[in-house]
């Protein structure tokens, strides 16, 4: 026992290097955390309501605007749900190319997070440009990989932020052979860089902090999960995406505009670490070996290993994009026509930050009657607060405010919270004590 009897409050009024706006308030009393609030004050934008009455393509173009960092994830979950309603099965070409486009977003988002948001913490810098003076090659490699991810999305969607290429049944237009060849040449040239990145990230001085949590992700019969699969956990959950609402309950807390979520009554983790923990056997053998030589064991209970999971997924994404575009042939019919139809459908894909679940109901004209969107950051909020309580207590509440603030920010950044997606939320069931 120590004689820690610290009493006081710590406020981090604006969280730096996260996407969107949030703050952290902790009240400590006699050496114990009395209250801990991860406040999300990003004003809601009420997307689920503004989509009502809109056409199918408006949904695909509109939901991209929920998050500038992962617009493709929003488009892909939406289009999967809409195609389920319209009775469209995309062609094998479309399925492959959507996965390639999604790989672009993983590359971009993960590289941005590793280099611009997370790594400066572990190396003692307050921003990536500051870190670039000491680590010029590493930062530039990261920016190149981020740019490569953007180039993939641009190839399919004209631009990487709010791309315009996705429609029900496929893409408006197939990339031509020459632009694909140019993209592939860049991907080939970057394979070594993404492999080297894994080693670099695994060598960062990451804190040790094992915790107990439930990893939740998609799982696919053959592939590392991105665009499809069942929802599984490392505690035995194995459900169809259609049954999500029977297991996950969202509830409002006063200090957040994004709803919290519990899976069967408990906080849970989604995102790269949960995905990797649940899908190690879906990694290519080469990548699994590389990870084994890093000396870090997976499945991991240490949230700080999320950055390694991101690096692994970046290489996976780059490699998949290469493999899936081998012998690329532009499709003559990049999409099929859809006929309006009433119904309800769900879609769930693995956004860079974890499972992103959508449900839509369309009327007979094909216009949205209701929408529900459950973003990954909302799902992770309860787990983040649980983690912060444990991590800061273990770190030592008697440390000075600056040290606690920095450690708290590092813990939060492990989740790469994308607070802009606090768009929520419909179909809310009151949880009144």
């Amino acid at each position: 026992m120590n004689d820690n009897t610290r009493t006081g409050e710590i406020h981090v009024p604006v969280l730096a290097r996260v996407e969107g706006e949030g703050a952290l308030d902790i009240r400590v009393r006699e050496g114990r955390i009395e209250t801990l609030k991860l406040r999300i004050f990003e004003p809601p934008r009420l997307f689920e309501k503004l989509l009502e009455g809109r056409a199918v393509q408006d949904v695909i173009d509109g939901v991209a605007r929920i998050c500038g960092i992962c617009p493709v994830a929003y488009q892909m979950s939406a289009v999967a749900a809409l195609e389920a309603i319209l009775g469209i099965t995309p062609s094998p070409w479309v399925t492959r190319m959507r996965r390639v486009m999604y790989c672009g977003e993983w590359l971009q988002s993960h590289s941005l997070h590793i280099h611009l948001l997370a790594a400066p913490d572990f190396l003692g810098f307050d921003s990536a440009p500051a870190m670039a003076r000491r680590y010029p090659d590493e930062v530039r490699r990261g920016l190149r990989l981020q740019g490569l991810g953007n180039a993939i999305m641009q190839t399919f969607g004209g631009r990487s932020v709010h791309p315009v290429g996705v429609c029900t049944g496929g893409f408006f237009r197939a990339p031509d052979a020459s632009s694909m060849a140019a993209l592939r040449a860049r991907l080939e040239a970057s394979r070594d860089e993404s492999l080297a990145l894994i080693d670099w990230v695994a060598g960062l001085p990451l804190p040790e902090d094992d915790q107990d949590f439930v990893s939740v992700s998609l799982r696919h019969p053959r592939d590392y999960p991105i665009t499809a699969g069942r929802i599984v956990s490392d505690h035995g959950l194995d459900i169809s995406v259609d049954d999500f609402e029977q297991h996950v309950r969202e509830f409002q807390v006063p200090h957040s505009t994004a709803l919290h979520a519990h899976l069967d009554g408990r906080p849970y983790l989604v995102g790269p670490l949960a995905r990797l923990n649940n899908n190690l056997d879906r990694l290519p053998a080469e990548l699994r070996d590389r990870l084994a030589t890093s000396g870090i064991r997976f499945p991991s209970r240490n949230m700080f290993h999320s950055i390694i999971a991101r690096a692994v997924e970046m290489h996976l994404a780059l490699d998949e994009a290469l493999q899936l575009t081998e012998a690329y042939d532009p499709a003559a019919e990049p999409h099929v026509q859809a006929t309006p139809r009433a119904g309800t459908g769900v879609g769930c894909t693995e956004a860079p930050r974890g499972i992103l679940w959508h449900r839509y109901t369309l009327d007979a004209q094909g216009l949205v009657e209701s929408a529900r969107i459950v973003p990954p950051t909302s799902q992770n909020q309860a787990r983040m607060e649980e983690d912060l309580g444990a991590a800061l207590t273990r770190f030592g509440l008697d440390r000075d405010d600056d040290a606690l603030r920095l450690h708290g920010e590092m813990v939060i950044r492990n989740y790469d919270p994308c607070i802009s997606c606090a768009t929520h939320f419909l179909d809310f069931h009151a949880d009144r004590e």
Partner: protein
Amino acid sequence: MITPHRRPRIAVHKFSSCDGCQLAFLNLGEPLLALAESVDILHFAEAGPVDESADVDIAFIEGSVATSADAARLRGIRERSRHVVTIGACATAGGLQALRNLADSEAWIEGIYARPEDIDLMADSTPIAKTIRVDLELWGCPVNGEQVLGVTQALLAGHLPHVDHAAVCTECKRRQTVCVMVARGTPCLGPVTSTGCGAICPQLQRGCYACYGPAVQANVAALSSYLVDTGMPADEIARRLLFINNQAPPFLDAGREWQARVIQRSGGEETS
């Protein structure tokens, strides 16, 4: 004032938005590092620096005015910034979320949150220029890297840059992109929408959906009557006009007019 004695200072502020326009900076790659070497970035929470109270030469603002605290925050930013530049559809026109301005936004909040009293949200989402004086507005959902770098360089060189608001059609002609409306009969808002995006939608063989805001002298009435002639129903015309930049006056006025026609007609059907 910019003097040779100190480096220019910039800030990037966020209001209600998706963060996508800040990515115009974060996706720059090498030029981002060059920029960070030539200016002091004093506030850019997503990239690291947090000092909203800093005096700066250029304040970039992403996002729309949405909460009761935003106006006071904006006035502070205005006082401490030599130039204020809005980036994107949210900051410049209220954004997609301004669709709530056309609806009963209180009912929307109540339909979503069990405890609406915990939610600080203004009934309307409004552009920055409705609250403070803005020196330059960059339209676009999202803005791109060339735009924000170009503006930074121009302002630091001492002049307010010219932003081209010619119609997307002019861009298609320059790029020799076949007109999707003429050749394929695909409805396209390019004739009334400002260029700046690179005319990417017609290149992908789809119609423009007006994410870069209204073109100069946009003749929305003429385009709407053309769309009617192609058989497009009034409610679809209204929907297309009232989308990403629904509060931009030419789109808002025409869009509401078409909405009113739908209501009139369905009302007429009910009484007949």
